[in-house]
């Protein structure tokens, strides 16, 4: 039902694309990270709750919205969006045509996240899954435990009169951090790129603790008690000078690996991801009940081989969401939008 074309994943029966990377007539968008939501299509279909965020990325365009679970029929194909738990508004796309069901998962995670609806398993015949963290070395700690560590780190820096700078992708990860860390500890300040998306989240009805843009503060402001949330691209820039003595940390699944953490040269790495870990991928695949699994961006080869060993028909799908284990997977690029790069 879906094939890979130069423009991206294409549903021929319904004549529309899913997360296409070249301009098309009709695009169904799983979520607003830039490697999935590109500009220039004539018509977009997005989740209703994700509209505000999508507007920030895509700008003015013809956008149709649907609630999660609501079915729209496109040229005879029944299309519905279901929560993917990745970021606000993120969706799995369910397609049904002549009794056959496919689900395109986009990016997803199974962990709890106060800023978006939880992942919802959808039964299907063919499941298209990501594999960003498709190796058994990736197994996330419970969010409560991880945020307790992050809060303790902030408190310790505060006691030493040092600002705490956390680098987190501006869409999704930053809001998750802000909503989950213990906001009683002190003030939370943000980089402009983060605050723009905080606004979009709040406008969409997500409650976040009070945050203020760093740029709004007077010169000479003392940041010693504060948590500052900035996109990864801020690391190593003069923008950080105003914080005086600061400790920095990077919140990303890649921080699970010591060598990557050291290469990133931050004081602390928090392995926090909006993607599924290895047990999460296997659980989601199992819950889909799919007989066939197509694996996109990430560690697709090992996941395909593992599934094959378990008697599941699996093959890799070379989307633009990533090359074959591009270095982006191990070296989080200073891109604020997502954990994978196209």
């Amino acid at each position: 039902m879906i094939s890979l074309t130069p423009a991206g994943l294409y549903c021929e029966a319904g004549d529309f694309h899913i997360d296409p990377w070249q301009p098309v007539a009709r695009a169904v968008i799983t979520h607003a990270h830039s490697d999935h939501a590109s500009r220039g299509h004539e018509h977009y279909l997005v989740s209703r709750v994700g509209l505000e965020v999508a507007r920030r990325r895509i700008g003015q365009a013809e956008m149709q919205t649907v609630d999660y679970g609501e079915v729209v029929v496109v040229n005879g194909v029944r299309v519905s969006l279901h929560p993917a738990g990745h970021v606000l508004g993120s969706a799995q796309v369910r397609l049904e045509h002549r009794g056959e069901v496919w689900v395109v998962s986009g990016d997803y995670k199974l962990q709890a996240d106060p800023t978006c609806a939880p992942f919802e398993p959808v039964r299907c015949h063919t499941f298209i899954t990501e594999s960003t963290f498709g190796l058994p070395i990736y197994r996330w700690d419970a969010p409560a435990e991880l945020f307790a560590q992050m809060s303790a780190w902030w408190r310790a820096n505060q006691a030493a009169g040092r600002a705490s700078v956390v680098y987190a992708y501006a869409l999704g990860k930053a809001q998750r951090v802000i909503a989950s860390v213990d906001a009683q500890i002190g003030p939370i300040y943000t980089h402009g790129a983060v605050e723009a998306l905080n606004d979009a989240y709040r406008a969409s009805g997500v409650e976040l603790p009070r945050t203020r843009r760093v740029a709004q503060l007077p010169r000479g402001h003392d940041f010693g008690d504060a948590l500052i949330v900035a996109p990864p691209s801020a690391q190593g820039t003069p923008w950080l000078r105003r914080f005086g003595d600061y400790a920095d940390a990077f919140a990303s699944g890649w921080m699970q690996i010591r060598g990557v953490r050291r290469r990133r040269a931050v004081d602390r790495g928090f392995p926090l991801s909006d993607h599924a870990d290895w047990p999460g991928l296997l659980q989601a695949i199992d819950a889909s009940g799919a007989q066939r699994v197509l694996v996109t961006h990430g560690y697709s080869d090992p996941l395909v081989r593992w599934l094959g060993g378990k008697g599941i028909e699996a093959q890799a799908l070379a989307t633009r969401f990533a090359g074959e284990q591009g270095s982006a997977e191990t070296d989080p690029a200073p891109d604020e939008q997502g954990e994978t790069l196209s």
Partner: protein
Amino acid sequence: MKRFARLYSELDTTNSTTAKLEALERYFRDVLPQDAAWAVFFLTGNKLRRAMPARRLYAFAAQLAQLPEWLMDECYEAVGDLAETVALVLPPPRTGSTATLSAWVEQRLMPLAASADDAERTARLEHAWMELGGVERLVWNKLITGEFRVGVSARSVVRALAAVSGLDAAVVAHRLAGEWRPTPENFLALISPQSTEPAASTPYPLFLAHALEGDPASLGPIDAWQIEWKWDGIRAQLLRRGDDAYLWSRGDELINEAFPELLESGAALPPGTAIDGEIVVWDGERAAPFGALQKRLGRKAPGKAILAQSPVVLIAYDLLEVDGGDIRGLSMVERRARLEALVEHSSPPHLRLSPLVEPVDWDALRTQRARSRELGVEGMMLKRRDSMYGVGRVRGPWWKWKIEPYSVDAVIIYAQRGHGRRASLYTDYTFGVWHEGALVPFAKAYSGLTDTEILEVDRYVREHTREKFGPVRVVEPGIVCELAFEAIQPSKRHKSGIAVRFPRIARLRRDKRPADADSLETVRALIGAAQ
């Protein structure tokens, strides 16, 4: 173990030497002597003998995690560190442990190492893993594999202990030199303000030279300097204490058994003598290439044939102890005079005085340095005549002025992923040179590229892979590098028939295409020039 794991994290998460020292000091102040003793033992690069082979550890972890070998290998490729891979794939721990480092080593690791029964060993290992999570588990694995690599040198441990004890770093280093055993008594003795009589066999910590990058003329008048050749062998200290002789390599490994002829030299010296020098294979006229010495290294009780084929000498260049008295505080000139008198008086066999080079000016020195290769040396040593014999690597008093390395333009033909902070990136390359229209493997090199260049080459490798053999990728020829190396000699073990010493990447040659790389014939010609 929790406290030691915290130290490990602190050392691992900072690049600042000061912060590392502070973390070490806090640790040594916080913990009991028995724990501090083991921390000193492991952080100075020791490990328990035969705790468990790393491969067995790895295979058992895969079994517990229920991972097939290929998937475990994929994980290792991504992590680039065996102990860490093992820690990450294992199921989460069932309980925690409050036992300290010494309890973990003495009550868990030592019995494991002592057992000859594989089933008992793995049962003990599993039990340990199920008590440890996160960094603690990683540290436990590192205790077994012995590869800490947290950017802490023996020297920083010594400095931290000096700060904790209020002693001079040289005193701590001296007490720690030799075969130091990790007991609480020894740790207390190590930081004791009272002077303790050094053990009879203890060598002195070595004094090391910095590399001279610029022109030596910047060092001022040449007559302030004592100049010697820089020998390409292994640094060693020969001691005569009481009736016995001791030969130490680089101050921390006793190598008496490998070099019986040098013990004869030691026996000819008066008791209470310490000589600093270089062991080289001597062919009667000059030092043989380093490769010849490698045949003698790591051999216990070498046979007659090898002794005759590769005879060694100690090239003596410094004297640290006379009649049992420490003379390191004397000037280089004075120590040299005493060394010459000693050698003349006792004429020990297999020992040669390091000849002095006495040029009239820096220009004459440059001319003499050009002869280095034909003399089989690596360049020159410049030592201030008024320099004392210090501890460790200090800028100023001693310089090594090495000859320019050889260089060859070669093409990347295979790539493998690296380790440590290069985990997951393709950073280990095999280089080829042209021979009869094809690129033949010639040398492997891992270092020399900047982080940005590494990312560039990594991307190239991923996008231009022709074939994969396990972890090795066959790469389409496209990247040319200038390789530098110190020595070259014929080799039967290498496909190209050539072995080079310390190959590394000098430069990424973006300006060159594979066709511009050197040929095997050009490289072979270097051997001719070297001999």
